[in-house]
């Protein structure tokens, strides 16, 4: 008797392959039923999300992943190349893999919490359908415990690892929640779009786009559901803004201290965050000397993102230790034996 895990995910298979293996709720029950009806498979759980499909099974005797892979491909009528598409784990490796999945360590967005509920749901369906017995019951219960422990004892999901994410993090440090905050994007390039999108995803409600070429400003504004402002009029809007993102290709400073000084009184000296992601810089560094202005350039944001990446690597090591310890401690049949 041994535990095996066979699956494919966003790292091993392109979307056109993943969608062939994705299972709806109804199909999931039938798949589990089919899996455990095989005489060599004693227990089974099938997990299917938009990014992964995985089969956890307790197999008898000499049966192994090859037989399981053949069965799955037959069921899904998959005749394409299998090379590098599937990954498989056995015994302890399989148990540790499940813990990683439940903890969000294997997810596209590291540490995301949705996967925990999806694993729980997959297990619950199999349990109700009689697909799990002593081995998988113990294993999944342990994996849920590990998932919770990883989330409470580590910080894998914390810290922004992109320039856009770092901008959002800084804006939140100044304003708390960004709900209802006003943003202006100066420049209509890709970085402007990404950063504006990131701010919107955290609640920024009013996004204005300004650009020397007004057409481009209109295009971006339409795309992100914002409002285009003529380049000649952006200074007037400054009085109402909370966040300014500057990302133009201008060879000189676009935002100067006098622009902010002119509206300070009107703004009632409210905090203003300015993010300059342009090279050469768009915002005169002297603007950052104004008391209520928090100015950050691309180097600062890049450094923040790098530090977050390093921190995440450290956290991942910590997560692995937790998983190893927990699996070690557990007396799981077909895993520790």
């Amino acid at each position, binding site marked *: 008797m041994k535990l095996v895990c066979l699956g494919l995910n966003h790292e091993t298979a392109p979307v056109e392959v993943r969608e062939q293996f994705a299972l709806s709720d109804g199909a999931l029950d039938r798949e589990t039923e089919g899996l455990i009806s095989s005489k060599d498979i004693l227990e089974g759980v099938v997990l299917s999300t938009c990014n992964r499909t995985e089969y956890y099974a307790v197999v008898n005797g000499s049966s192994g992943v090859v037989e399981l892979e053949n069965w799955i491909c037959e069921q899904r009528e998959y005749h394409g190349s299998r090379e590098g598409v599937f990954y498989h784990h056995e015994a302890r490796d399989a148990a540790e893999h499940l813990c990683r999945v439940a903890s969000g360590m294997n997810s596209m967005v590291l540490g995301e919490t949705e996967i925990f509920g999806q694993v729980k749901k997959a297990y619950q369906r199999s349990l109700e359908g009689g697909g799990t017995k002593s081995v998988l019951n113990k294993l999944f219960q342990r994996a849920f415990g590990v998932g919770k422990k990883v989330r409470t004892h580590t910080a894998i999901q914390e810290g922004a690892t992109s320039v856009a994410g770092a901008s959002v993090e800084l804006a939140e*440090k*100044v304003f708390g929640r960004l709900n209802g905050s006003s943003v202006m994007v100066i420049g209509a390039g890709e970085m402007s779009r990404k950063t504006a999108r990131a701010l919107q995803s955290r609640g920024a409600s009013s996004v204005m786009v300004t650009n020397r070429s007004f057409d481009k400003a209109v295009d971006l504004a339409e795309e992100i559901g914002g409002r285009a402002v003529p380049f000649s009029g952006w200074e007037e809007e400054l009085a109402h803004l909370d966040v300014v993102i500057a990302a133009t290709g201008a060879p000189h400073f676009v935002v100067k201290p006098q622009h902010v000084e002119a509206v300070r009184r009107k703004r009632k*000296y409210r905090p203003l965050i300015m993010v300059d992601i342009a090279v050469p810089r768009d915002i005169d560094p002297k603007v950052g000397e104004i*008391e209520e202005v*928090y100015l950050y350039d691309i180097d600062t944001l890049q450094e923040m993102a790098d*530090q977050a990446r390093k921190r995440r690597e450290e956290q991942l090591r910590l997560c692995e230790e937790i998983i190893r310890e927990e699996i070690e401690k557990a007396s799981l049949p077909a895993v520790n034996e």
Partner: protein
Amino acid sequence: MDCLKESADPHLKGWLGKGSYMGMGIGWVVIATVLAIAGGVVGAMSLRTERPSPVAFIWMTLAFGAQLMALAWRGGLRGQCPLGDVGEICLFLAWSLTFFYLVTGTTYRVSLLGVFTAPLVILLQLIALIPGFFEKNVISADSVDAWREAHTSLSVLSYGALALAAVAGVMFFILNYRLKSHKFGGGLVHGMPSISRLVKAMARIAVVGWVILTAGIIAGLLMPEGNFSLHLMVATITWVLYAVLLGVYFVRGLPGRQLAIGLTVLFVLSLVVFAKL
């Protein structure tokens, strides 16, 4: 003078004996101090690990309970609001500071930073514990003047709020400096409320303190010997300065840093002036 004979709770003091009753009272102050230290240490550790913990809040709540017991002891001795010596004033101030910390904490997340309030509470209680600062021979009041009681207790209570506003101001200085100088590392920045929340917390807590101070001054003017003493004059000047600062902030607007400077300087200055009176 025998405080046991004079004070308001003769049965308990008679049963315990003078020394034991005094020791028990001091014991509550010591317990409150130890609990505040625990709150501060837990808060500091949670910041170091970048995971602010509500445990600091629990320690401070327990410290608050111990402070109440200590105040009840002094109140029992005096038969009136316990604000008759340096020890009592420090203890009452520490209690009001803890009170506002607990009340406003949940709203403004200031409570996550027990490390900022706890040191002030600890310092005040340690001063109170200096031998001689709690008078041993206390005369129990024959009669209680309600206006005097209201004046003293409301004034000290207002100082608790104004102290917390100053603490929020110090937090603002630290966060503002770190954000302006791009120093984001460590748990300090991670565990603090945002700049906007700190500015709002400073202003709102100061308003609460100012309103209570207003009530305290009115009560002072209504005291039987309610002449406009030097003490009341200083209190009124303090009140006017806070009113100007808050008025400017709410009407014209003020950068957060200037508000923080104003609140911190005003608090320290008024405290120094009152201490010299």
